[in-house]
């Protein structure tokens, strides 16, 4: 569980940008979407979500704006920028290389000798 928390901490930016590249969302909507897409595996500590969103906005990867949600309430939406899309592309590329390297190291150990 601790290992998963550390992995989640390091992947926060990638996860948020990956979800927001599909459509703009507000904070609670993001939490639910991430949990649903990961089949409940990834559950964000919601208190850390908002500082992360603010940091991405400050770094110009996201734009935050207030808008009315479907149920008529004012919510702060986040939309990915062009810079955010480039950032996401480079992070996903790095992630793919990293996970391939881990699999290459871990895979032999997963194969049982006949």
């Amino acid at each position, binding site marked *: 569980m601790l290992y998963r928390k550390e992995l989640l901490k390091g992947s926060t930016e990638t996860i948020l940008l990956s979800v927001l590249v599909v459509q703009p969302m*507000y*904070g*609670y909507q993001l939490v639910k979407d991430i949990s649903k897409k990961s089949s409940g595996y990834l559950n964000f*500590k*919601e*208190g*850390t979500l*908002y*500082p992360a969103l*603010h*940091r991405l906005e*400050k770094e110009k990867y996201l734009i935050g704006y207030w808008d009315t949600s479907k149920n008529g*309430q*004012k*919510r*702060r939406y986040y939309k990915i920028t062009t810079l955010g899309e480039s950032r996401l592309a480079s992070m996903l590329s790095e992630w793919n290389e990293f996970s391939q390297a881990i699999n290459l190291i871990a895979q032999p150990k997963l194969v049982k000798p006949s």
Partner: protein
Amino acid sequence: MIPKSNRFIENVISGLHLDPVQSTEIVDELQAHIEDRAQDLVDQGISVDQALRQATQELGESDAIAKGFYEVHSRRSWRHAFLGALPHILLSLMFALHVWTEPVIVAAMLGTALVISVLGWRAGRPTWTFPWLGYCILIPLISWGLAMSAVGYGAWGVLTRGSLPLDIPIYIVSLAYIAISMWVVIKIASRVARNDWLMASLTVLPIPFLAYWFLYFYNQQELFNQSANRIGLTLQEIDSTAAIIFLIIAAATIIFFRVGRRAVRLALLAITTPSVVVLAWLVYKSGIGPLAVFAFALTSIAVLMSPALFDRTPAQIVRTALEKLQIRRKS
């Protein structure tokens, strides 16, 4: 609906130390989250009170959240940090080039500080202007010294000779000037300290060293009565040390703006101030004893931390933020 005096939200507000606009936006966002989550829980059959409690708990510790927001919003760009350090860099140059005695250059420096501070104040007080504001405070500080000397001289005259050595209007003007300028400085200091008292501490960062430097010259005035060669060499050593010290203060200012952690900022200021005073004492080799320097260093830390007195209480911060929130929601 969520009661406005939700304890969790109050704790977050009082820990943010950000300007009111940013604070109210953050509070609005967090309250919206709690509302949405609580609604989902109520839809699942949980009571409203329990839903609100659970939604709040799931957000995590209010201190940690406030700290997270503070770190994100208070960390400044390299440009911002450099602009904030610039007055100290300019002072360092003035000492390095031995031009701090040129009235035109000193006037230009103080004039620039005043213009930047006034323009910055009117443009919403960007934090990089606060170090410039610190040098503006030097002007009233020096003139207080002169005005209080006049008042003290008058009091001494009354006690020893039974008469005032100067005309009465001078004393009236001096007392009025001290009162009015103190009121102005305290007003400014309280406005600067309102959101984050550490910013006010940053503003007054060079003042303890400048006070020590001034006392050193006052104590060593016989130097200026000696030969020109001896004066030139000694002044050069004094100026080089002052130049280095202002560079240290500039570096501390840059680090202050670049780090987001409040505890690190506090430690940085608390270490820099007495360190530069002790460094000056070690290099200047003045007649001031170690105990006096130790007392001076402790006093300088107290001066640096005194803006905390102007910090609003958590109740005041919360009240202001919630009032602004109500205004925003009505508009």
